[in-house]
C-alpha cells in the first residue's frame, strides 16, 4: 500500500543499536532512500490510516443528500482531501523525545527527576501465531501478554469473553515501536522505528518524535471492544469492515458509535478501567482525554482551513509546504463561502460612542462605593 514499504529494511535486529540512518545504509538502501524514509511525514500502516479514515468519515462525511438542497460543492467530505493524513501527521509530530533525557532502567540509581525510562517508549504487541503453540490465543491475550497481566488479575466489571470476542486489530500481526538509535549514547531529538506487520505486508517507518498516531489507533480498538462488550453501541456492528478493510474493532462501529466510543474516554471512566491494558501502548495514558479533544478539533484545523490546498506538499515539513490551490478555493471554502485572506475590506462602519469613552484622571475617578466583591454571584439563574 505504501511505496516506501520495504521489507529489506525491517530487520530490527540489524538496526538496533547502530543508528537508523547508518543501519539503513548497511541494509542495502541508499542514503537518499534512507533520508526519504526518515523525512517522509506520513508513511503509515494501513491499520492506522483506516482507523483515522473512519473518524474523518464520521465527522466530515460525504453528503450526496445535500446536493439538491445546497449544491454539488457540499457533497465531498474529509476523505476526499485525505484528511486522515493531517491527523496522522499532527499526532506523529506531537511530542519530541530527547535522547539525552532517556535512560536505561536500572542503571546506577535509576532515573533522576528529569530522566525518562527507556521502556516507557518501547513496546511490542505480538499477534503472530494466534492460537498456536507459542502464540497468544487471541488479540486480548496478546494485549495481556504485553501488559504482563492475566485476565484473572483484571477487574473490568464485564464479561471477559465478550471483550475477547470483540477485540480485533484487523490484519495487524505485529506492532513494534523502539528507539532507532542507541539513546544511551546520543542526544537530540530521538528517532523511533515503527514496524507494523500484517499477513501480507510490512510497513516500516523511522520517524522523529514518538509515533503516537499508530499507538492511538490500537487504543481505540481496545476501547471499542470494551464499548461493545458493555453493550454501549447503539447501532449494529459491521464485521466485514468493507469500507475500512485494515481497521480493527473500532471501524466495525457505526459512524455515530465511533464518536460515542471516543467519548467514553473523556466521560466514561475508560482510562481508569482500562489503565492496565492501555499503559504499555502509550507512554502516558492520561493524555488520552486531550487526544479525544484533538481528534475532534483537528477537523477544524485541517478540513475547514486551507490545508487541503497544499497538494502534494501537505504533509511535508511545514517550511516545505506550498499552496497549489488558492486558500479561498479549496473544497471546504467553497462550502463555507469564505473567499480567503484579503489585504482589506471596503465596509461601512461607525463609532458607537461619539467622541470616545469618558476617562477622567485617576484622582478624579468617582467610582460607586457599593461595589460588589468577586465572591458575590447574585443574579444566578438567568436574571440580568
Amino acid at each position, binding site marked *: 500500500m505504501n511505496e516506501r514499504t520495504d521489507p529489506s529494511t525491517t530487520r530490527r535486529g540489524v538496526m538496533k543499536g547502530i543508528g537508523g540512518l547508518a543501519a539503513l545504509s548497511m541494509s542495502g538502501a541508499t542514503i537518499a532512500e534512507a533520508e526519504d524514509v526518515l523525512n517522509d511525514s506520513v508513511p503509515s500502516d494501513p491499520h492506522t490510516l483506516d482507523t483515522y479514515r473512519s473518524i474523518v468519515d464520521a465527522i466530515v462525511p460525504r453528503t450526496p443528500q445535500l446536493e439538491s438542497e445546497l449544491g454539488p460543492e457540499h457533497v465531498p467530505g474529509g476523505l476526499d482531501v485525505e484528511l486522515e493524513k493531517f491527523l496522522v501527521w499532527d499526532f506523529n509530530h506531537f511530542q519530541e523525545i530527547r535522547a539525552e533525557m532517556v535512560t536505561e532502567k536500572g542503571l546506577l540509581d535509576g532515573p533522576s527527576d528529569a530522566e525518562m525510562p527507556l521502556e516507557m517508549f518501547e513496546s511490542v504487541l505480538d499477534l503472530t501465531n494466534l492460537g498456536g503453540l507459542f502464540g497468544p490465543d487471541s488479540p486480548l491475550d496478546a494485549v495481556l501478554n504485553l501488559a504482563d497481566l492475566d485476565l484473572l488479575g483484571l477487574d473490568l466489571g464485564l464479561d471477559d469473553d465478550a471483550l475477547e470476542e470483540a477485540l480485533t486489530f484487523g490484519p495487524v500481526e505485529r506492532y513494534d515501536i523502539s528507539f532507532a538509535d542507541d539513546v544511551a549514547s546520543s542526544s537530540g531529538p530521538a528517532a523511533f522505528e515503527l514496524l507494523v506487520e500484517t499477513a501480507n505486508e510490512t510497513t516500516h517507518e523511522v520517524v522523529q518524535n514518538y509515533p503516537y498516531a499508530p499507538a492511538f489507533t490500537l487504543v481505540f480498538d481496545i476501547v471499542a471492544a470494551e464499548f461493545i462488550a458493555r453493550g454501549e453501541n447503539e447501532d449494529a456492528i459491521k464485521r466485514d469492515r468493507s469500507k475500512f478493510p485494515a481497521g480493527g474493532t473500532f471501524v466495525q462501529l457505526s459512524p455515530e458509535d465511533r*464518536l460515542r466510543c471516543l467519548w467514553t474516554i473523556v466521560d466514561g471512566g475508560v482510562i481508569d478501567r482500562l489503565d492496565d491494558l492501555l499503559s504499555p501502548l502509550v507512554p502516558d495514558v492520561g493524555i488520552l482525554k*486531550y487526544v*479525544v479533544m484533538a481528534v475532534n478539533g483537528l477537523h477544524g484545523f485541517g478540513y475547514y*482551513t486551507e490545508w487541503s490546498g497544499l497538494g502534494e506538499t501537505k504533509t511535508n515539513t511545514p517550511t516545505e509546504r506550498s499552496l497549489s490551490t488558492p486558500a479561498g478555493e479549496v473544497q471546504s471554502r467553497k462550502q463555507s463561502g469564505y473567499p480567503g485572506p484579503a*489585504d*482589506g475590506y471596503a465596509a461601512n462602519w461607525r463609532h458607537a*460612542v461619539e467622541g470616545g469613552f469618558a476617562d477622567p484622571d485617576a484622582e478624579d475617578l468617582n467610582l460607586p462605593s457599593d461595589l460588589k466583591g468577586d465572591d458575590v454571584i447574585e443574579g*444566578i439563574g438567568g436574571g440580568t
Partner: protein
Amino acid sequence: MNDPDVVIVGAGADGPATAWKLAHDHGVDVLLLEGGPWHGNEQWPKPHADSGGTVSTDPDDLDGKLLDEQFTHREADANDPTYGYLRVGPADHSRAPWFRNLHQNAFIWQVGAVGGTSLHYFANHPRGYPTAFNDQPHWPFDYEELVPYYQLNEELTSTQQAPMTGKEEVFIEGATNAGYDLIETKNVTETGWRPQANAVEVPGRETSNGQPLDADYEGSFSYDDGFRGDTLVGDHFQGSSTPVDAPVRDKARKSSNVGYVPRALDTNESSEQGNVALRPNAYVTDIETKEGAGTLEATGVTFRDSWSGQSQTVDSDTVVLAGGCIETPRLWLNAGLPDDGWVGKGLTTHWFDWIVGVYDDETVADINPEGEHMDPYVGQNSAVRFEKPGIGGMEDIGMSPGLVSYADYLFSQAGYSFDTEVDPDEPWDTRGYVVGEELKRRMSNYKQTKALLILTDDLPRQNNGVSLDTTFSDEHGAVPNVKWEPHPDDDAKRDELSRIAANIHKEAGAEHVHRCDWPPLLLHMQSSMRMGEVLDSNAEAKNVNRLFVADHSALANGVGGPNPTNSGQALALRTADKIADIYF
C-alpha cells in the same frame, strides 16, 4: 549586551513593555531573552528553517514586508498547534512543539515567539473591572493606582473604541432589545454593552485615494500606496500584518512586537536612555541565585540556544520573569526556588463558553440595510462587548471558517449534539459537538454565523495550576503539568452569562442558537504567580530578592473577566517603575 542591568525572561505581551519602560524612563540596560522565534526581523529571514542571527538591537532590523511574507494570513499556516507559525515550540519547524502534559479534554492556546500570545489576539484592551481589584483582600493596591498605567498603555497601543460593522450592528440590536444600556466609560462598574476597547488603529486613518473607507471605497490597502490604519480584515488570529507593506511599527494592530518592540529598540538610539537587546531562540532553563542576608538573591539566568543547543549564563542585577502563566512557574520550579504553596497555583482562565447564533439573510438585512451578509471575516474580530461586573462579560466575535468550525462546533464538554438533550427551559436550541451532515449544514451558513464568547470571572483556586510533570521532560527539564477545573460557582456564573448571550442572539432575531459548552480553553491565563501570595506589592518575589514577575501570572485574579492584555501590560509598566525605584 554582555552586562545588562536587567534580564527579562520572555518577550511576549509584557516583557517588551517592561523593557521599554526600564530603558526609556530609567536609563536601565535590558537584555530580553525569548525562547521562540522573531518574525519580521532581517536578522532572521527564515526564522523556522534557519538559525539566522543571534541578537538584535537595531530598530532598522525590523522589516514589515518580511513580516507580511512570514504571516501568510492563512489559517492552518498560522494556527495549527503542531505546525503553525504561531505555536509554542522551537523556531525550527522540523521539530515538534514543546510538550505540556494535560490530562483533560482541554486546549492550551499560546504562542511562543517575540510578541507571544499577543501575536494572535484580537487586540481587545478593556480595563479590568474596578471591583475585581478593590475587593480582593490579597490584591495589594487600589484600582486607581493602575489607572495612569492603563492610560499610558492605551496611548502607546493606540487603544480606542472599535468600529461597528455588520455583525456588531446585529449584536447591538439584540442587546438593546434585551434592555441593556450603552456604557460610555473605561472604568466599568455597571451592567451593559459598549464598543470594544481595542489596540487597533482607526479604520482607514488615511486611504490611498483620499476617500473614506466605507462600502464605496475602491482604493488600495497597501501602505506603499498611502493607506494607513486598520483595513477591516478579521484575520487577527493569523498575525494580522496589515496594512500590507507597512513597517512593523505601523501595522494597525498593536501586538507587542508592533506596539512595544520597536519603541524598546529605539532607546538604543538615544544617549539619554538605556539599551535594549532582544535575543530570540534563547530558552531560559535556570535562574541563578546566591545566598544573601538571610534570603536568596537572583544574580542572572542560564539559557539554551534552541538552534545550537548550547547553554550560556548571563549575570544581571535583577531578573524579571515574563514567560507567561505556564512557563514562569515552570522555570521557577525547575530552578528549585522556594515554593510556599502558591507557585504555579491559582491559575484562572475566564472559564469561557461560546454561544453561536445563526441568522437568516432577511433578519440581517433588516438590521443592516446597506449590507447583504454578516460576513464574519469582515471588520475586526471583536468590536463590541457586554459587561456584568461580579459575574463576567462577553464579546461578539467573527472569525475565519477553520477557527469557527473548531470553536463553534468541534470543542465541547457536553458530548455530541446528536445525543445531547437540551433543557426546553434553556434559551439555546442545541448543545455540544456538531458533526456529520449537521456540521456541514451549519458551516454552509458560515457567512451568517457569529458567536458570543463568554468570559467568566473565575476565581483563583489553589488546586488549579502548573506543576512539574513527573512523567515527561524535554531539553529544558521537567515539562509543565497543567490542570484547570471549574468550581461550581464558576459554572453558575458561566451559565448565567450564557443565558444572557442566547437571549441577546434571540432578541436580534437569530434563527438558531447553539451552546458549545466548551471544556477549559487555556487562553486568557492569569494569576499563577499572584501578587499578594508569591509576589509582594512591587511584584518582587517574597522569597527571592531581585527577582520580579512581569507577566499575567502576577495578576491576583482574572481581573473580573475582561480580556487581560491591557491589565497585564499596565501592571508590567508599573513593575518596571518599581524595579527602577528599588534597584537603579
